[in-house]
């Protein structure tokens, strides 16, 4: 092969070649890490909440004159919402997934209530909760109307029965026998697990979207009796828009003395919750694309210049019998050598950078495979970039060799 002459030519052009290799290395290190961050953010954004997201909307309600006992008006509101045609079910709740504050009640390992095992978010639900959220019950049962108690702000009480997510069930009872077992809260209180739902995400994004506690949720059979709570309404497919207009009007029919805020579909809540993630993904994506473009243009520019410098040499080779394809191959091989060196360096830098990042962000460790596929992208891109200058080189006429002598 013609490796030796290529290497000798490169040796005479050390700085240029080294610059390109270095540029490719840094590019690879950055894009491989950006890609792994992007992939992680996308995973967070796609994480299912476990509820029927497409058909749920929520609104928050506050009565402007504090009712002495809000229980009756809440029940009246719920009855009104449930009576709307097109509404599958409705529910009053303390929280909705992905936004706002959460009630966090820590769980304990055993009946002594001492040793902490998990941070759980508490949702208050009544017998309509399963249908209103569109949850997927995988074992046991949901609450019955007779089980539903009341809970007030700052009140602490523990229900006889709870429904937990699969995550909580697996964490507490790895053998898979969670159903019917007791669940102990830290400090005080215990409840029996009567049902398990596939999944549910906690409210808000405390501790970040990647935190291991995201699906640690416990449903308690309580009506949260408070002036200021959220109604969750699940509609039949395609009816959401109409009911989002009808529901506040219906509630105002009961009384005007109320503040109805944040009437929005769940898709909106999800969109807003992941705004930060989305902007990070877009920014890293844009940076990576630009970076690849710049590196490609750098390769084109420098190779172009080399072609210009070596016109005589190319002409001579052509005159001595080299075919066009030989010239093409020369430049491609040369580029492969440089880019290959850069990629080796880049994979090392990328993995090093990933280790550094992992100490700062909750980020998945980048595997060698990942870095190598990044390297492949860069190599192919460089080969494509060099095509145009190489074609120009191949079109140098052999007659050049005889000119200017």
């Amino acid at each position, binding site marked *: 092969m013609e490796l030796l002459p290529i290497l000798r030519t490169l040796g005479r052009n050390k*700085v*240029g070649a080294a610059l390109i290799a270095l540029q490719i290395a*840094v590019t690879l290190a950055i894009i491989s890490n950006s890609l792994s961050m992007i992939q992680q953010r996308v995973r967070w954004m796609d994480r299912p909440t476990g509820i029927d997201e497409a058909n749920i909307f929520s609104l928050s309600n506050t009565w*402007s004159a504090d009712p002495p006992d809000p229980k009756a008006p809440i029940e009246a509101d719920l009855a009104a919402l449930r009576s709307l045609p097109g509404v599958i079910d409705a529910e009053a709740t303390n929280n909705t997934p992905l936004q706002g504050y959460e009630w966090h009640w820590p769980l304990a390992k055993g009946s002594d209530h001492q040793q902490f095992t998990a941070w759980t978010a508490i949702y208050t639900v009544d017998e309509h909760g399963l249908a209103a959220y569109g949850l997927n019950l995988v074992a046991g049962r949901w609450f019955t109307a007779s089980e539903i108690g009341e809970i007030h702000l700052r009140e*602490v009480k523990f229900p006889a029965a709870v429904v937990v997510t699969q995550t909580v069930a697996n964490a507490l009872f790895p053998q898979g026998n969670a159903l019917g077992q007791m669940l102990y809260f830290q400090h005080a209180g215990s409840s029996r697990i009567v049902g398990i739902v596939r999944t549910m995400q906690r409210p808000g994004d405390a*501790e970040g979207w990647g935190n291991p506690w995201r699906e640690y949720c416990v449903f308690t059979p309580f009506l949260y009796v408070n002036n200021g709570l959220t109604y969750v309404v699940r509609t039949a497919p395609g009816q959401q828009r109409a009911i989002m207009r009808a529901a506040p009007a219906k509630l105002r029919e009961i009384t005007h003395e109320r*503040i109805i805020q944040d009437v929005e579909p769940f898709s909106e809540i999800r969109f807003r919750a992941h705004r930060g993630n989305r902007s990070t993904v877009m920014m890293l994506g844009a940076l990576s694309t*630009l970076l690849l473009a*710049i590196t490609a243009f750098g390769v084109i520019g420098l190779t172009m210049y080399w072609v210009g410098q070596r016109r005589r040499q190319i002409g001579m080779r052509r005159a001595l019998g080299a075919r066009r394809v030989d010239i093409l191959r020369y430049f491609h091989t040369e580029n492969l050598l440089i880019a290959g060196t850069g990629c080796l360096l880049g994979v090392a830098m990328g993995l090093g950078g990933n280790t550094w990042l992992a100490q700062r962000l909750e980020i998945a460790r980048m595997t060698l495979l990942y870095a190598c596929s990044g390297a492949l992208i860069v190599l192919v891109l460089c080969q494509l970039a060099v095509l145009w200058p190489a074609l120009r080189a191949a079109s140098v006429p052999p007659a050049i060799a005889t000119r200017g002598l």
Partner: protein
Amino acid sequence: MLRYYFALAFRSLRRNVLLTVLMTAAVGVGIGACMTTLTTLMAMSANPIPDKSSQLFIPQIDLSGYASEHYDVSSLARDFSYRDAMAFMGARLGLRQTATYPVQLTVIAPQGGRFQQLGRATYADFFAMFEVPFRSGAAWRSSEDQDRANVVVVSSRLADRLFPGREAVGRTITLGRRDYRITGVLQPWTPIPRFYDITYNGTRGAFAEPEDFYLPFTLAIDRQIQTNDFGCDPMARAAWAAQLDSNCTWIQFWVELPDAAYVRGFTNFLRGYAVQQRQSGRLQWVPLTALHDVMDWLDLQHVVPEQTRVDSMIAGGFLLVCLINAVGLILAKFSSRAGELSVRRALGASRTDLFRQCLAETWMIGLFGGVLGLALTAAGLSALRALRGVSAQSVTGHLTALNPQMVLITLVVSLIATVGAGLYPALRASRVQPGWQLKSQ
């Protein structure tokens, strides 16, 4: 002579437009990306109250036992319990001091309509301590703190919403179904980071909007006005009195200590107080304590999100790639001008002259690149604003605003970076061998 160099440089740049555009674009895109992320990073790490940040202090005291056991200052609770806050308010060891906590109340507008509004319960000292600017009126008097007076200070935003075009001071507003007399209206005031209360979803409170009304702390406690996060599990706070007596941490306590003597006095008090908590049997350990000024505090609490730092590192790497790219292209450019440079050398120009001439050219690239970078920075920042869905007036708007300082930094960075990148190529170009070059042509 310099003008001649620049004229030469301009001509040379025009001769190969493609290469010039490529170089300028590389520098510009690099600068743009770097400055876009750097703007946010710098705004987030800025000093929110430059003239007083070293005189405002926040003490910490360990009520959980964890920090004391592990001697781990970073795990101390950010906030104070009510008991401790009252003990420290009573001691009056600073020039000024305030206990404060965030609240949320329903506002009833005089023209009808109700809305929820975030506010803050605080002492009168808050305004003087934190140099809060008033548009009209003033803070309530310290005596009104003791009297639990029905007074309130509102933001200009809230005042203009409730009383458009009219003076709000002296008027009454209804908050949570009680009437309060407005004693003062603030000017727009957005300390970034919002150092006095960073607790919300981790440390995200640092970049939250400042509240829209301020009412006396003493009054808020009397009226049992709730806050959103009491910083402890619900078992400890079944009733209001129990909550005030508990070790739940939900109050920010700040003290102004203008000189070293004040700081010494306060530190002594803090240590003594800690020992006393053990002796009185309230705690089973001598609690770890700490005292931080504003910048220390923001540093310790890592208010700047790691992702922002990482973004800046990535953007820095991006600029590096762009500059390496520029070096390669400039190298190519200068080498192709070896003939011309040889002629100048043969006609008597010194190496220094050639070096200067080449640098003039990189200066021009740097300037063009800087201007392009500036445009791209502005575009990048407005894209970020659009992505996060915020207006320019919000905190995030401020964090993504291109200020004059950043414009200057952008141009200077661009020039320095490009000239730095051009040094080696210029040096090499000025070492041209005129005899050899001219003969070979």
